[in-house]
């Protein structure tokens, strides 16, 4: 039984600490890179994202040099196209989104008083996927093969192989791979925030950073899948000539714009909210008081999260949609200014109510907000359709988006870097360098981007590689280029400040800014997150709970020991954070790296149409992931429960809705369902744009789809019975049910493809057969996954790892099947019945 430090001799306390340290230690030598600890993964993730940012920054400088004077020939037109496309792509996909995942993985566990996020190997897998995908996309420019159609890849330019080359495939496949990593991170963060908070940290006590990230992770689940669905359609068109965006055969490029911007606009807020979340941590610290209006910030975060999904068409005001449709999106675009403004007023009120200490993080924060407000004002302008018709695709929009993103994201992230740097190596960054960097960046930014408003209003379009001298854009562009270099010099100062050796400086105190939130208990030299998991009674526990840091570090709270040599954390309830389970999280392993390399290999090979390599890599990834699941999840504990200290005993194994795995499946399937809904949106989109969208084709008939639906429904019922029988201990009947369900799944999938096959639907001939095939294949691929899960459960049962009491696998698989059933229902009703209703 766990002893408490107070009642132990010094020697025993030391031994306890040593055990804990050993369990959480990283491997040494080159095996260090197999670490899955949130601290290392977060750091590597952030460093990689910053490296990509610097790379994309150099591309921006090249673009600026080319535009500095009229008729310049510093870059060729094609290289210029590659440079600006890659600049936008890398900044958005490889810096802005990943940096927030990095910061969240690094900060959230200590901030929530947890040791780890619930799926550390998933974080590691996400990081390695990101690294590989990022290098693949960035590296392409060195082979003159980078994407060159702009970061939003509009067809018909980007679907035309003559004009867009392999770069478009690199963009589609490289980024799809990274999007998968982002969704994995979203699953990790949502489950972590809802289920792994320290006991007592009720939802009204959660740090605002966690609130923001909860909202952002939820937004990722609804924003990224439409882009993945779009990528699938896009790649099918490029690779197999299925005409989704080709008007000659019934397709429509506008569908891509819809799918891209349903992702693209929320993306802006996915980037902005985490950065503002950093401000919500920094402002109270430097005002030395709790934030004024905690609930108002929650309102702003949740409200922005929702409203940001009603804005996407404001990127499409010039595509000829009905004016009333434009007006809806224009109105929603104005409405989102309300919650955005609320946050800024909350920060100002907090500063007014406290005694503000001006420091480098506050400087970057306040400067960033000033720039952001300016970008917000031009945002209100371009949200008005008539103004946008004038400004669309000009440098005015370039100025607007950089004001929003650099003010709303880059400056707060730099503020966060200066603020949280002591958590990385116990030393501070230089105050003088920080101030110098700030003024260089602030002045440089405005000198670079303010003139772009004017060049835009003077008619300079985006993405031109040069311009003649007589149009009056020359001196404005020259000023912009000078400003860009001043901005870059500021960033260089920060890079030097971060990288300069600091081992000669003395280590600082552990909470140098006197902050009130829990992440400051984390000690840079320890890997365990927290020495013991505390009980939280305040929003600012380090200010309000006396001796908290000492008691935590003396191991006076929960789980101060690691007797069984396992990495352990607590699972708590969603609303009131009552402890409900001891969660054993996975430790160091090769398998996330191996899985990421195989999966990355499959995507890379697919880009170059190396079919055999694709298949080999995909099989490798599949095998690695199954091995990972088999050896690393739902393990049977050696005892049913465990004493965690302070008189509390908790179970080591729970299944169903109380388990983290069930939640992860639920959240993943929400994202999956969103991608499916996007494909269904595509189907009905084609219906609206054509008089007869079937183009005279008979379609897949009603008979096969209905048979398919019947088989899927039967398989789903068999799965529910399998779970029920398992719960009652009828093992053989459960296995029989699983086998029956598997058989029904195979037959259902065959019936699904039989419809379009029987009616000879050729996906290359017209968009209608193509979209029907996509829906059928989507369902069939999910059915194959469902089949794998059924076989997996059967195998687990045969080796005794799935029993009546230990049924995590079966519970989660049945949950998957609920979603699969709905997918099948909608697919078969849409393709089989809808054409008959017309």
């Amino acid at each position, binding site marked *: 039984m766990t002893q408490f430090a107070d009642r132990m001799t010094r020697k025993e306390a030391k031994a306890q600490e040593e055990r804990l340290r050993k369990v959480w230690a990283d491997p040494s030598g080159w095996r260090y890179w197999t670490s899955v600890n949130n601290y290392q993964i977060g750091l590597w993730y952030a460093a990689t994202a910053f490296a990509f940012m610097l790379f994309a920054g150099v591309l921006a400088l090249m673009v600026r040099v080319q535009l500095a004077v009229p008729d310049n020939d510093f870059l060729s037109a094609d290289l210029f196209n590659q440079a600006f496309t890659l600049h936008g792509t890398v900044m958005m996909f490889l810096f802005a989104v990943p940096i927030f995942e990095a910061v969240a993985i690094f900060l959230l566990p200590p901030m929530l008083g947890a040791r780890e996020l619930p799926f550390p190997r998933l974080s590691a897998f996400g990081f390695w996927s990101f690294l590989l995908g990022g290098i693949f996309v960035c590296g392409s420019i060195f082979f003159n093969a980078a994407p060159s159609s702009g970061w939003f890849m509009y067809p018909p330019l980007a679907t035309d192989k003559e004009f867009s080359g392999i770069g478009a495939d690199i963009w589609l496949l490289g980024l799809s791979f990274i999007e998968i990593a982002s969704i994995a991170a979203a699953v990790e963060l949502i489950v972590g925030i809802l289920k792994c908070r320290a006991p007592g940290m009720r*939802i*009204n006590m959660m740090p605002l950073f966690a609130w923001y990230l909860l909202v952002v992770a939820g937004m990722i689940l609804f924003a990224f899948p439409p882009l993945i669905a779009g990528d699938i359609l896009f790649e099918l068109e490029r690779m197999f000539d299925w005409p989704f965006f080709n008007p000659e055969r019934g397709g429509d490029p506008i569908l891509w714009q819809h799918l891209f911007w349903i992702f693209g606009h929320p993306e802006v807020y996915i980037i902005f909210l985490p950065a503002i979340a950093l401000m919500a941590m920094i402002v109270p610290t430097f005002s030395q008081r709790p934030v004024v209006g*905690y*609930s108002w910030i929650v*309102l702003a975060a949740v*409200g922005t*999260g929702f409203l940001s999904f009603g804005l996407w068409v404001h990127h499409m005001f010039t595509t000829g949609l009905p004016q009333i449709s434009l007006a809806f999106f224009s109105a929603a675009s104005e409405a989102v200014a*309300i*919650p955005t403004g609320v946050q800024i007023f909350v920060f100002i009120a907090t500063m007014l109510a406290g005694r503000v200490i001006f420091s480098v993080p506050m400087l970057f924060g306040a400067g960033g907000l000033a720039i952001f407000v300016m970008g917000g004002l031009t945002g209100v302008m371009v949200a008005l359709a008539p103004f946008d018709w004038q400004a669309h695709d000009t440098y005015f929009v370039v100025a607007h988006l950089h004001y929003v993103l650099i003010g709303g994201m880059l400056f707060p992230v730099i503020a966060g870097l200066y603020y949280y740097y002591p958590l990385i190596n116990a030393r501070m960054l230089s105050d003088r360098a920080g101030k110098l960097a700030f003024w260089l960046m602030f002045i440089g930014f405005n000198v670079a981007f303010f003139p772009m408003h004017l060049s835009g209003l003077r008619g300079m379009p985006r993405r031109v590689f040069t311009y003649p001298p007589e149009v009056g854009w020359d001196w404005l562009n020259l000023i912009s280029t000078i400003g860009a270099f001043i901005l870059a010099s500021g960033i260089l100062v920060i890079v030097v400040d971060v990288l300069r050796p600091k081992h000669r400086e003395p280590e600082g105190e552990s909470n140098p800014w006197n902050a009130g939130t829990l992440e400051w208990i984390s000690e840079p030299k320890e890997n365990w997150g927290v020495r013991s998991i505390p009980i939280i009674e*305040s929003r600012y526990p380090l200010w309000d709970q006396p001796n908290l840091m000492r008691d935590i570090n003396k191991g006076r709270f929960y789980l101060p020991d690691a007797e069984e040599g396992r990495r352990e954390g607590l699972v708590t309830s969603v609303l009131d954070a009552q402890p409900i389970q001891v969660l054993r999280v996975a430790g160091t392993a090769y398998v996330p790296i191996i899985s990421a390399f195989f999966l990355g290999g499959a995507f890379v090979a697919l880009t170059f149409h190396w079919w055999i390599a694709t298949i080999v890599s995909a099989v490798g990834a599949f095998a690695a992931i199954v091995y990972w699941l088999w050896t690393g999840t739902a393990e049977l504990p050696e005892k049913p429960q465990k004493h965690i200290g302070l008189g509390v005993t908790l179970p080591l194994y729970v299944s169903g809705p109380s388990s983290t795995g069930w939640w992860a499946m639920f959240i993943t399937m929400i994202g999956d369902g969103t991608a499916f809904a996007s494909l269904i949106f595509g189907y009905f989109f084609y219906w609206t744009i054509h008089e007869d969208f079937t183009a005279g084709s008979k379609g897949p008939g009603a008979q096969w789809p209905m048979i398919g639906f019947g088989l899927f429904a039967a398989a789903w019922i068999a799965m529910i019975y399998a779970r029920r029988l398992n719960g009652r201990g009828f093992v053989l009947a459960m296995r029989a049910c699983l086998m029956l369900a598997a058989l029904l799944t195979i037959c259902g999938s065959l019936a699904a493809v039989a419809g379009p096959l029987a009616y000879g639907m050729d996906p290359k001939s017209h968009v209608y057969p193509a979209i029907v095939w996509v829906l059928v294949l989507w369902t069939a691929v999910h059915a194959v996954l469902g089949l794998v899960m059924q076989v997996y459960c059967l195998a687990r049962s045969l080796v005794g790892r799935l029993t009546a009491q230990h049924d995590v696998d079966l519970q989660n698989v049945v949950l998957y099947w609920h979603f699969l059933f709905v997918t099948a229902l909608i697919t078969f009703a849409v393709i089989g019945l809808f054409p008959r209703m017309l």
Partner: protein
Amino acid sequence: MRIIPNEMESLWTLFTAPVVWALHFLICYVSVAVYCAKSSQISFGFDVVRLGVVLVTIMALALIAMSGLLAWRQWGFGTHDPPHDDPTRHDRELFQGFATLLLSGLSFVAVIYVAMPLLFIAECSP
């Protein structure tokens, strides 16, 4: 078994009003988009769509008002002042009530924003 576990039911209430906003927004967008795309095959006029969407708007506002009312009750009809940061179940409930009330207010305003074009635009005209 439930898809949505018990415990979450009370966290979901926070999102009721914004979800109503989202559904209302979708109905506005989809009904108008489909009508304008298919107007040659549809026998009734655009005013019917406008009237229908106005009715949906009134229903949405009523639902949001209802969510706001329930939130106001959960917040104890305003008898307690924020910040609601005591480590008690009671304060947690007050916080939820207050946050839900604020979100209901925002959603109410946002629904009105989105519906306003229906008053001014009487045809599809691209």
